[in-house]
């Protein structure tokens, strides 16, 4: 699955407020482990992504989505479907 650069950019923008590590975000950044974001905050972040793109990303999908690139691919697939 590949994601569009625009989607990746937008996800990085939405993720920045949750990133307290100062690490630079790339498609390979693992959202929970690299950025030390706890499970509840990851779900809160995904809610922001859902609302921005007006799509549903069920928690079951979130738990299998680790990197920014993975999430962007999920978003692209779901935006297209809607």
């Amino acid at each position, binding site marked *: 699955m590949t994601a569009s650069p625009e989607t990746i950019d937008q996800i990085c923008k939405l993720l920045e407020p949750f990133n307290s590590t100062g690490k630079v975000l790339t498609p390979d950044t693992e959202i929970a482990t690299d950025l030390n974001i706890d499970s509840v*905050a990851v779900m*809160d972040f995904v*809610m922001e992504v859902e609302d921005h793109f007006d*799509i*549903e990303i*069920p*928690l079951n999908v979130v738990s299998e989505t680790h990197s920014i690139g993975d999430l962007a691919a999920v978003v692209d697939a779901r935006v297209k479907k809607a």
Partner: protein
Amino acid sequence: MIDLLDKHKPIAERHARMMAMGVNAVGLTNDKILSPTRAMINGRETILAGTNNYMGITFDADCIKAGQQAMAEFGTGTTGSRIANGSYALHKELEAELGLFLNRKHCIVFTTGYQANLGMISGLAGPKDTIFLDADSHSSIYDGCTLSGAKLVRFRHNDATDLDKRLTRSEGEEGGRLVVVEGIYSMLGDRAPLADFVAVKKKHGFQLLADEAHSFGVLGPHGRGLADEAGVEDDIDFIVGTFSKSVGAIGGFGAGNHPLFETLRYAMRPYMFTASSSPASIATSIAAIKKLAAEPERRDRLRANSARLFAGFKGLGLDMGCDTVSPVIAVKCADEVSTIAMWNALLEAGVYVNIALPPGTPNKLCLLRCSVSAAHSFDDIDKIIALFGKVVASRAAA
């Protein structure tokens, strides 16, 4: 070889940091329980203000007698599940008593409240269904959702409009839809706006489950919970609750009027594959539920105590968890280190409250959480307020 416990090292480090600051805030030992509101902790008599013992019923003479008698008559344990070993007459009696209290046709009791949510949610929803759960739901709800295999959609806390939006997005998908909310949320003490959720239910059509763990016995003219208080009981399909709070025992329940409700007994793994609760616990639950029905003054006392503590904390200018009075009264603190320090100072001054830290809290909050009991005296409440004034308000001002 990869050591399986390696992944927990960050937890061990966080715990070590807490231990370095004083006593173990998440592993406290009550050396002796003196009453529903007093314990000996670290050699000191301490006011208990973090027990969820809302009715203060744990030392009630009738409940103790009922438990002792059941233990003498039925033994110390049931040694198996109700499916494999059969029910005890006491289980049936408890379910009948509870059905009467709740005004529900069917009740199923579980060994713990945690299992009640696991069982009910996984029994109701399956892999083809969708569960919409409040973002601030208790872990037992999240775990029940995971066990169900259903599609999980999380909506913004207490936000019926957000739920409406998410239901609209998933319109036309296969399977049934279950919405899960709580009566009183355990961390901040706020209530679900049930009437708003019922309006969304009428618009979209789904089945609605309310977890009344912290509101059962506490809210409503009959003490049946938030649905009773809000006057929407007919619109709540399923109620879940616990015996470990207002009832002062251990166990949980699911209740409803659905004609197929009893079938859930053969579809809920957390009911089928665990031993049923001990005779003493079942018997004390029966006795306590009779008391909740017969002694509404316990609720009045709890309400008066809660209002007094809430007003006292407000008067100190503390940052409260929510704007409505309930027996769960939380104070927001600046950060983890200062919260642990204040918790320690409160304990040393003779009052025990709960400490709640992320990710166990919503929005990364650090909380000092009190739970009020009907057994607290006004004098106890005033002491708690005074100690929070000394320890918490002064620090916030500094």
